[in-house]
Each structure stands twice: as C-alpha cells, then as structure tokens.
C-alpha cells in the first residue's frame, strides 16, 4: 500500500466503516509512515468535527409528523394544519423537537379517528 491508497482509506477508517482486511493493511502502512500518521490524526479530528456539525443541524419541524400521519391515513394534506381548524378537521398534537414522543389525535367533524394512539414514547 502506498500513501495515496492509504489516504483514500483513512477517512473510512476513522469513520469506523472500513472492512477489517483493509483496516489491517492500512494500519500496517501507517505504523511505518509518519506522513500517514499525521493524516490519520487530522482525519480523526475532522471526523469528530463533522459528526458534531451534522448533529447540530436543525431537525424536521414539529408539524411534519402530523402531516405524515394524516397522509398515511389517506387524508389530503391541504386540510391538515397543526393546531387549527379547517373544514372541521383538527389535529391535536404534542411533539418534542425530535418527534419522540408524539401524540397524534385526529378529529374529523368532532369524531375521534384512530390515528396512532401512542403510549408514553421515549423509547429511543
């Protein structure tokens, strides 16, 4: 393995998804190559920063579950609006930022429709 090949594998190694055989070959090269050792340290740092950055991105907005749930039940999206009343349809919903736990309660013209009756949630 040369440095170019090692450089291609390093990010996958630090991401934790490099197959075992390739990981072994990479480590063997890196053990004897100062340049690639630096690369590995830099890649590990970058990996950590990237994971932090992606995890810090916003998530789906709170109303999305209600829309998905309603569409899964075959209701037209145009009639779904969180917390408001349109054409006799209301969607009552409490949601956390992650969408778990979510309680969906759907009423059509005053009648409770079984949507997704949810227990306590929080089983993430």
């Amino acid at each position, binding site marked *: 393995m040369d440095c170019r090949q090692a*450089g*291609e*594998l*390093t*990010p*996958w190694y630090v*991401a*934790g*998804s*490099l*197959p075992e055989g390739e990981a072994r070959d990479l480590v063997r090269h890196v053990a004897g190559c100062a340049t690639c050792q*630096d690369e590995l*340290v*830099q*890649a590990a*740092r*970058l*990996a950590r*920063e*990237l*994971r*932090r*950055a*992606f*995890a*810090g*991105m*916003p*998530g*789906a*907005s*709170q*109303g*999305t*579950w209600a*829309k*998905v*749930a309603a*569409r*899964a039940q075959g209701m037209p*999206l*145009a009639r779904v*609006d969180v917390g*408001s009343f*349109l054409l006799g349809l209301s969607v009552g919903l409490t949601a956390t*930022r*992650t*969408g*778990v*736990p*979510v309680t*969906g309660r759907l009423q059509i013209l005053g009648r409770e429709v079984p*949507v*997704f*009756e*949810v*227990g306590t*949630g929080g*089983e*993430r």
Partner: protein
Amino acid sequence: MAQDGELVARVAQGDGNAFRELYGRFADRVFRYALTLLRNRHLAEEVVQETMVAVWQGAGSFAGRSQVSSWIFGIARNQAYRLLREEEKGERTANEPTCAPDPADVVEQEDRVRDAVAALPPGEREVVFLAFYEGLSYREIAGLLGIPEGTVKSRMYHAKRRLAEVLSPWTAGRQAS
C-alpha cells in the same frame, strides 16, 4: 428496543405505533441529509414528508436485503432529486398555504464546519454526510448512489482534502509551513 427491521415489518402490517417510532428514529436524520443535499429547508421538510409516507406505503416491499437506513436514505435521495427537478422547472405549486415558520428556523447558528461542507460539490457533501454521520461504508454508499466504489472513495478523498484546507488553521495542530 426493537430493531429497525422489526419496526418496518410491523409498519408493513399497518402498525401505526411502529410507524411513529420509525418516524422518530429517522425524521431528523432524513431532514439533515436532505438539507445537506439541497441546502433548502423548505424542500428538506418536504423530503421528510414524502419519504416517510413512501415508507408507510412501501414497508411491505422492503425485503430486508439492505439495511433499513440504506433503504430509507435511498428513498429520501430519490425524493430530494425529484423535488429539486420540479423546483428548477418551476413546476411546483405552493401546496401549503398554512406553512408557518418553525421558531427553530429563525435561530440557526452559524457553523464553520457546516459551511465548509456546504461549499463542497453536492456529490462530495453527500458522501461526507453518509460516511461520518450515518456511518455507512463506501460499499453501502456506492449501492445507495448507484456509482462505483472507486468513485465514492475519490469523492471522499477530495472532500477530506478540501475540508482540511478550509479548517486547518482552526482545527489546529497542522499548519502548512
């Protein structure tokens, strides 16, 4: 805790609780993936919707050949590109007059790393997201994107170099002398 695959099997039986659980596990991840690809919150939100509805409808056809995450991100990817094409052709009609801004939208923090990722070519930032955030292997990503493994590796190679250049004064340690 149920495996993703068990949840999908229950969703295929019409189990709404399993669906909500699956939604909880994937909605934010799909949103972030779509946002990474499209850099458009509004479209990313729609990708989540379309993807999860497709998951509900298609759970019965999920054969368990791939990981659930690969399957769901594959759907999300198709939806993202479809919405993007429609948006570019101006075919999209504003179908949600009730769309109110999420309070979280307003206070999006600046993030140097995220900006650097956003500046990468789309094919590279997608690979970076799937590899580092989702932990997919280059093989899985190649399958998902329908491109050769070598292409995935070289995208990653270039992305990593570019990110290191942009971020090196700040990630510290190594400076070009």
